C-alpha cells in the first residue's frame, strides 16, 4: 500500500516540477553565488506572489474545462480602482476588500456569460478582456497614477512573522483552496464538471451555479493580485496587467493542470509559477541574454505538456 502511494507521488506532476526546481536551483546556485541568498529567494517569491495567487483562480477555471483570458484586464481595473482609493486615503484593509469585491463582480460577469448564457469561455473572456481594458483607459483618462501613501505600499513591503505579506497571502490562499478543492463537496464538483458537464448534471450537481462560483472566486484572486501589483510597482498605467493572463495560464499548465479540464491543483500551479520565475531570475544572474529566456520557457511548456500527452497515450494503449 505504502509503495503504491509512493509510486503515485512520483507520477504526480507536482513532484516532477519540484524536482526540476531543485535541479535548476542547484545549477544556478553553483553558477552564481547570489542566487541562493535569502534576499534573492525572497525576491523570487515576491515576484511570483501575484502570478501564483491568480494561478489558483485560473486553475479552478481550467479544471472546469474553461479559460479566462480577461485575467490581466481584471487585474488592471482592480489596480486602477484601488490606486484611486489609496489616493483618497482609504484605510488599507478596506482597499483590499474593495479590490476583492471588484474582482468578484468582474468575475461574476464572466461567470454569467459562460454559465447562464452558454458562451464558450475563450470567446466570453476574450470579449470581456477587451471591454475591461477599455474601462481601464476610461478610468485613467490616458494618465497614470503613482505616489501612493506608504500605508498602501505596505501591502507589498510589509511583513508578517518576518515573511513579506504577498508571500503570506499566497500561501494562505493556496492552503485554503487546496482544502476547498480536495475536501469540500463543491470543490469536488469542480473536477466533476471538468470531466463531463452532462454527467455532473445527471449526478444532481448544480453545474451553472458552480461554474458561476468558480469565475467569481477566480475574479477575487485576480483582484488580490491587482492590489499587490499596484502596491509593489507603485504605479498604475493603462497597460498594467496586459499580458498577465498568459503568464498565469503558462504557470497553471506547467503545474500540471490539464488544459482540457478535469485535472489540476492549486499547489501545482504555484510550483509552475515558481519554476518560471526561477528560470527568469537565474538567467539574469548568470548573465544569459534576455532572448534565451523566452526560448527556454517556451520549450519547457511544450515539453511538459507533450510528456503528459505521451503518458496519456501509453495509458490508453495499456487498457485497450
Amino acid at each position: 500500500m505504502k509503495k503504491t502511494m509512493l509510486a503515485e507521488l512520483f507520477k504526480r506532476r507536482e513532484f516532477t516540477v519540484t524536482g526540476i526546481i531543485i535541479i535548476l536551483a542547484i545549477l544556478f546556485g553553483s553558477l552564481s553565488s547570489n542566487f541562493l541568498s535569502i534576499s534573492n529567494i525572497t525576491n523570487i517569491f515576491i515576484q511570483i506572489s501575484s502570478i501564483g495567487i491568480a494561478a489558483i483562480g485560473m486553475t479552478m477555471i481550467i479544471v472546469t474545462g474553461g479559460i479566462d483570458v480577461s485575467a490581466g484586464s481584471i487585474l488592471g481595473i482592480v489596480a486602477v480602482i484601488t490606486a484611486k482609493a489609496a489616493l483618497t486615503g482609504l484605510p488599507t484593509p478596506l482597499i483590499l476588500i474593495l479590490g476583492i469585491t471588484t474582482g468578484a463582480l468582474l468575475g461574476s460577469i464572466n461567470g454569467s456569460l459562460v454559465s447562464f448564457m452558454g458562451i464558450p469561455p475563450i470567446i466570453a473572456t476574450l470579449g470581456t478582456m477587451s471591454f475591461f481594458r477599455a474601462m481601464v483607459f476610461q478610468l485613467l483618462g490616458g494618465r497614470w497614477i503613482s505616489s501612493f501613501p506608504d500605508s498602501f505600499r505596505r501591502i507589498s513591503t510589509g511583513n508578517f512573522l518576518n515573511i513579506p505579506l504577498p508571500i503570506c497571502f499566497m500561501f494562505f490562499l493556496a492552503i485554503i483552496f487546496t482544502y476547498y478543492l480536495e475536501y469540500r463537496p463543491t470543490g469536488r464538483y469542480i473536477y466533476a464538471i471538468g470531466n463531463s458537464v452532462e454527467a455532473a448534471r445527471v449526478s444532481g450537481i448544480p453545474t451553472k451555479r458552480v461554474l458561476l462560483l468558480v469565475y467569481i472566486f477566480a475574479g477575487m484572486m485576480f483582484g488580490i493580485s491587482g492590489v499587490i501589483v499596484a502596491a509593489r510597482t507603485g504605479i498604475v498605467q493603462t497597460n498594467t496587467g496586459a499580458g498577465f493572463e498568459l503568464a498565469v495560464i503558462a504557470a497553471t499548465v506547467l503545474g500540471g493542470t490539464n488544459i482540457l479540464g478535469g485535472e489540476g491543483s492549486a499547489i501545482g500551479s504555484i510550483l509552475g509559477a515558481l519554476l518560471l520565475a526561477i528560470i527568469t531570475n537565474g538567467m539574469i544572474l548568470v548573465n544569459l541574454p534576455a532572448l534565451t529566456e523566452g526560448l527556454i520557457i517556451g520549450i519547457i511548456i511544450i515539453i511538459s505538456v507533450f510528456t503528459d500527452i505521451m503518458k496519456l497515450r501509453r495509458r490508453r494503449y495499456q487498457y485497450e
Partner: protein
Amino acid sequence: MNSFFKAEKIVKKFGGVRAIKGVNFELKRGEVHALVGENGAGKSTLIKIISGVIQPNSGKLFLDSKEIKLLNPKNAHEMGIATVYQDPLIYKSLSVIENIFLGNEIKTKSGTIDWKKQEVKTKELLVSLGIKPNFINRPISSLSIGLQQLALIAKALNYLAKILIFDEPTAILTEIEAERLFKVIRKLKKQKVSILYISHRLEEIFEIADRVTVFKDGKNEGTFNVKDINRDKIVELMAGKALTENIERTMKINRAKNKLPIIEVKNISSCYYKNISFSLYPGEILGFSGLIGSGRTEVMQTLFGLIKQDEGEIFFNGNKFKVNDPSIAMEHGIVYLPADRSSEGLFSKLSVKFNISIPLLKKLKKKFLQVDREAEENLALKYIKLLKIKAPSTSTILSNLSGGNQQKVLFAKWLSTKPKVLILDKPTKGVDVEVKVEIHREIVKLAEEGVTIILVSSELPEIIKLSDRIIVMHEGTITGRFDTKETINSKNLLSAATGTRMIHAKIN
C-alpha cells in the same frame, strides 16, 4: 469452401500483458463468421490487427495464401479489408455522399471532384444493399444510427471490400434496424464478401452466421459450424462454466386497487413526445419499449428534470411535482441511470470512489463541512463487494475498468442514494453475457426490496423477462400497453413499436 484469410499464431502484448496468446483463425470466402467472447477476451484486439490499426508482436497473416503485412488501416483497405465499428465513425456535418467518398474522391480530368459520378455511384452502392437512396444529400448526422451504419457499409463496399468486419453492429440498433442489417449481410454474402461478425447477442449468431469462433482469455476456444452447436454450449465455452439465465420473479406485483401510484404522468407533451400519460405503481418494474428515437429516453429525462415538458402535469405521491432540475428529482428519491455511460453517466478520468460517492457527497460531510473520506471509502468498498465490481482498489481510475464493471459502478453510484424510483435507460448496453445476468438479478432483487423501477430497453428478451407491465412508444406517442403474461410477447411489442396498430390492454 477454401480458406480465404488466415491468421497464424498471433500474439499481441500490451505493456507486458498478453491480450492475444498465439491465436489461429481463418475466414472462408463468402461466409458469415461470428466471433464471440466476453469483454476482454481479445476479440477487439484481433479485429484491430486484421484491420491494420495495431500490429501483432508475432504471428503471420495470409490473404489468398499469400503472406500480408498490415502496417496501417490504409494497407488493410487496399487489401479489401474494411471495418464497421460499433459507433459509426462519421463526419457529422458532411453529406452521405461526402462521407462515402472522403479520401477516395472520384475526380474529373481537371482534378476537381466529380459530384455527378459520386452521386450515381452512391445510389448504385445503396441499391445493391437493397436500400432506397433517397437520403444521400442529407448531412449524415440527420440520419438514424441504423442508416448511418448502412452508409458506412456502402463506404466499405466502395473500397471493393472482400472482408467486412462488424464490431457489435446491433448494440446500438433497434430490432427493426437489426433485421434490416441482417438482410444487407445476407446480400453481401451472396456477393461473396466474407464477413467477420462480433456480437454479444447470441440469438443473432444463430440467425445470421455460418460459423462461430469462441474467444476466452486471449485464446481461440474453437470454431464450430453454427448448425452443430447450441447457445448453452457457446455460453459455456465463453464463461468456462454453465450460466443459467433464467430469473423467475418470485413475487409478481400485486397492484391492489387501494395502492396509489407513486408517479402519475398526465398528458405531457414537448417537441420530443406527445400526450404521454401513465402511472407508476410502487414496487413494480415498468418496461418502456420502442425504437431508438421513439421518445422514451426523453420522457425519462423529463421525469428526472433534464428536459422540461411544454404541457401536462406530473404527480408524485398525489402531489403536483415540478421538476426542473435533477437535484429536485433526487430529493424525491428519483434517480436516472443514463444510456450513455461514457458521456452522461460517469467521470471516466476520476476514481471509482469519486464516481460512486458523487451524488452523496453532501451527506458524507462531517467536521468543518468536509467530506468524510473514511465513510466515502467504506461506501465504495461496500458496493464493490455487493455488485462484485472487479477493480484493484477504490482509487482506480474508472477508464481502466472494463465496460461491464464501469456499468456496475454506474449502478453503485445510484444505489448508494437508496432511491425510491430507479429509472434505468438501457442498463445492459455493451456489457457481456455474464455481467448482463448479474445486472438482471440485481434489478429483480431491487424490485423485491420495494424499489420502483422503470426499465427502458431496446432488447426485447430483456424487457419481456423483467417487466411486470410494458409501455411501447413509437414516434413520440404511446402505441401499446401490455400487462398480462399472454399479451407480453415479442410479436405484440414489435407491432406496437413500429406503429402498425394501436393496442390498448385493459389497464388505465
